[in-house]
């Protein structure tokens, strides 16, 4: 149970926050966005942090999930859950298809290829105006319904989005602690080394790419229903970058870092509202500053300083992570 201590701490924070601050805008409204972004970041962290493969196009998978839900429920009036399922299937297919050639690339080439993929998908959302609504997007996406329970208020969304996040974290934790998790870290350490130890690196990279894409697509479906409106802007290159920043800000290959990163980055524009014009500037400055001065990320950097205060003399055998 020890390895799940962090998970229970996270679950407690999520449960207590709305009880302690029931009408706080940052909890019930921003909290939903944080949970959705954190869900994508947790998935992306599996790929970036644990496997060491960068993706500058993850907003595309988020978008595929959102557009699948949006299009199927509005144009064809499908049941939202069926639409969500189809969205996940579509994402699986696309991710599986591009994963093989894309993950053969490394470093800058991989960055460029994923970036290109993200931009292509974004253009496909903008261009067929008669289907996707073009730059204006889709509106009137129906509310989600769980067993006769309409999810139509902030607090209900808070419960659903954070429930989804906890589910995602649980899946990720189990993955990290399994044999696959060990193989992932071996691939990160040295691909050739991992191969020598009998890890099928191609297969494992593809598998984790697909899993992280599914995380994003699931979050996308939730996002579409929660907002009731989607437009291509939410799934642009810029959002892909923000996702990467969330993972990096928290600290790569840290179990809870990405959630911290997502919380910080989601709250940032809300707190910077007074400096609206400076938002872009500050985001850029934060990205540079963190990478130059705290390359391990804010979360890992801080928790390494705080941990010794609470835990005395336990020799940690766990690999990097907080």
């Amino acid at each position, binding site marked *: 149970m020890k390895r799940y201590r962090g998970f229970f701490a996270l679950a407690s924070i999520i449960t207590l926050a709305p009880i302690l601050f029931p009408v706080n805008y940052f909890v019930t409204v921003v909290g939903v966005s944080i949970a959705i972004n954190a869900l994508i970041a947790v998935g992306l962290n599996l790929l*970036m942090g644990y496997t060491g493969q*960068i993706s*500058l196009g993850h907003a595309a998978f988020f978008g595929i999930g959102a557009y699948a839900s949006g299009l199927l429920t509005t144009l064809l009036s499908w049941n939202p859950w069926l639409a969500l399922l189809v969205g996940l299937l579509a994402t699986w297919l696309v991710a599986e298809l591009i994963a093989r*050639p*894309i993950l*053969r*690339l*490394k*470093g*800058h*080439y991989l*960055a*460029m*290829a994923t*970036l*290109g*993929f993200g*931009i*292509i998908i974004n*253009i*496909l959302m*903008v*261009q067929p105006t008669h289907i996707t609504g073009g730059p204006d997007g889709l509106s009137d996406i129906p509310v989600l319904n769980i067993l006769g329970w309409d999810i139509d208020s902030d607090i209900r969304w808070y419960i659903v989005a954070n429930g989804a996040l906890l589910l995602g974290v649980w899946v990720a934790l189990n993955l990290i602690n399994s044999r696959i998790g060990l193989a992932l870290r071996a691939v990160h350490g*040295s*691909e*050739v*080394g991992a191969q020598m130890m009998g890890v099928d690196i191609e297969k494992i990279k593809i598998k984790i790419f697909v899993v992280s894409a599914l995380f994003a697509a699931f979050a996308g479906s939730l996002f579409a229903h929660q907002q009731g409106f989607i437009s291509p802007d939410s799934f642009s*290159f810029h959002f892909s*970058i923000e996702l*990467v*920043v969330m993972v*990096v800000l928290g600290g*790569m290959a840290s179990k809870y870092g990405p959630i911290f990163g997502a919380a910080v980055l989601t709250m940032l524009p809300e707190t910077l509202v007074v400096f609206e*014009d*400076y*938002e*872009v*500037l*500050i*985001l*850029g*400055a*934060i*990205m*540079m500053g963190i*990478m*130059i001065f705290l*390359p391990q990320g804010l979360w890992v950097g801080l928790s390494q300083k705080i941990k010794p205060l609470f835990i005395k003399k336990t020799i940690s055998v766990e690999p990097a992570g907080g």
Partner: protein
Amino acid sequence: MSDVLLQSLITGVTIGSAYALVGLGFAIIFNVSDVVNFAQGEFVMVGAMSAVSLLAVGVPFAVALFLALVIAVCIGLILEKFAIEPAKSATVVSTIIITIGASIFLRGLALLIWGKDFHSLPAFSGETPIHIGSATLTPQSMWVMGVTAVLVFLVHQFFNRTITGKALLACSANPIAASLIGIPVKRMMLFAYGLSALLGGAAGLLIAPIAFTSYDAGMMLGLKGFAAAILGGLGNPMGAVAGGVVLGVLESLGAGLISSGYKDAIAFIILLLVLFFKPQGFFGKAGEERV
């Protein structure tokens, strides 16, 4: 039909020249420092926007262009000094994020200074086009192609004929060995960023009379330049130039024959195909991973 092709070819080579200059800058920086500079496109934007502002306050045209280039070069030097140099031991992912951060920062700065309006520069020498069949060639297009050709030639000569150029190549081959034989590697890095900012700024000035410029115009141009550099084989400066022209032509052919809305998608699909089937680019050498 052939007229469409000819017109696409002219447009393609013109815009491709801009990609070529940006790609050349990418290649130079990558060669010297192993960094892919995602802020490359911002040099283009800074160059064009500065010129627009300088003209607006009454600076003579030629002086405005010159000062705009100086500003772009300064931005390049500042970027190297304050963002790249302090993060020396950074990994690939870190440098990607630093330079993307720098590009977002510059974009934010441009938004504060210039707002969200679109701007344009007047053409360098008149607007009377030359007709070739039913296709047209504007004087500005000729400026773009001509100046690009001259700049590329100069860069080529610089690398092959001057001591500084060869020193720069030595830094890219092996920085430690280069510093052992007395090459000031740090200053060379600074020089490389300045040079590539100069090329980016020049590209911005050249195409500003054709394409509108705005605070966020740099991003797409930067990415296309990156694509050009990869098509040519990362780290091969002349390959990047060829890659830029090829990308421009294919993109504008696609726009002419299919639909202009999908222009950018076409560019990136070509890029993905090249990466999938010929990852070392057209002129790059195949690399191998060392354990």
